[in-house]
């Protein structure tokens, strides 16, 4: 079973409330259309950094949930972040991995190990509080709202198909510095 990433994002959008979201790569275009002006910042220009960016936000803002939309190829670039996140123990961090087994934006070359790579076992071994794999949309609909209240860090490997759009086929993305500036203003301004 595999879920359409756009369907997964719709579920997240319906339940995330004021959670900060960190999309990366193939989830970027669809998320931008669904949630254009919100507490989100896309990981653009430093592939592999979504989990670390999410960790920093989670540590700075323990009162908010932070949801990272990672990719399997992206996470492999900074796999050590699993241990760093587990060591920092952010109770408010949800790390979602959109697993499709390929580098979608560059032409769908298989990632090292392809779909065999078991990220759930890696996250569990690193010390995440909760780890799970979900390949069914109905199960994700049931499970995601609970993640928003459970103690983190939570890691969920989501078995997904390819997204309809990628940052290469839809180039309307906003540069990272502009997204980051807006998010900082919102986060700090919310306390003014």
């Amino acid at each position, binding site marked *: 079973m595999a879920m359409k990433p756009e369907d997964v994002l719709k579920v997240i959008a319906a339940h995330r409330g004021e959670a900060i979201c960190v999309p990366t790569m193939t989830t970027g275009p669809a998320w931008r259309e669904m949630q254009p002006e919100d507490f989100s*910042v896309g990981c653009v*220009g*430093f592939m*592999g*950094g979504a989990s*670390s*960016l*999410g*960790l*920093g*936000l*989670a*540590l*700075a*803002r323990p*009162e908010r949930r932070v949801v990272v939309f990672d990719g399997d190829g992206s996470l492999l670039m*900074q796999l*050590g*972040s699993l*241990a*760093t996140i587990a*060591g*920092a123990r952010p109770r408010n961090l949800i790390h979602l991995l959109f697993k499709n087994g390929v580098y979608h934006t560059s032409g769908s070359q298989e990632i090292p190990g392809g779909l065999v790579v078991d990220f759930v076992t890696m996250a569990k071994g690193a010390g995440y509080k909760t780890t799970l794999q979900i390949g069914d949309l109905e199960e994700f609909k049931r499970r995601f709202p609970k993640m928003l209240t459970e103690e983190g860090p939570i890691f969920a490997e989501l078995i997904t198909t390819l997204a309809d759009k990628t940052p290469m086929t839809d180039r309307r993305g906003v*540069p*990272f*510095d502009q997204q*980051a*500036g807006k*998010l*900082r203003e919102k*986060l*700090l*301004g919310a*306390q*003014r």
Partner: protein
Amino acid sequence: MPESIPAPLVIDALKDTFKEARAALAAEGWRNPTSPYLGWILSVPDTHQKTVLAALDKEDTIKTVTCATEDEACTIAAGLHLGGEPVVLMIQHAGLYASVNTLRGVSMDGKIPVFYMIGLLSREKDKDPKESRHSMVRFAEPLLDTFSVPHARLEGPNDVHLIPEYYRLSRQRKGPAAVLVGLETT
């Protein structure tokens, strides 16, 4: 001749830096986030600064997070900054070399202020770093120059004032700035 800097001096400078950063945030009209810490250290443990790291272990007011890589440290710093938290990176020159793409993408292109304290492990006391026989010492300043990252050397106890100064500079220019720790701290 360069001199080693005692860890307590560095710790005091870090505390002053964090206090100033929070005051600056308030002066800009923002309310500081509710945090139990003055500020954050993101460290990929550096042998050169090990006495400072040991002293930080005993500090309740500064939170240290050990990172697996310098790429992570730089990007975690971005997240903390977006949330309003002051942060300093403590790494080694080799880690700077390993993470220049993240420095470029996150701090330079992303316009995120990131302040580095970089240990010059193996720097010879009687030589200028540019004349070191160790490439990892020799190339640190030229690399920072190539990326137009402002930097200064901490060559003794009288230089600790450069820590808040270069931290402030990173905020002002919305990008990276660094100080290089010349000799192993005591």
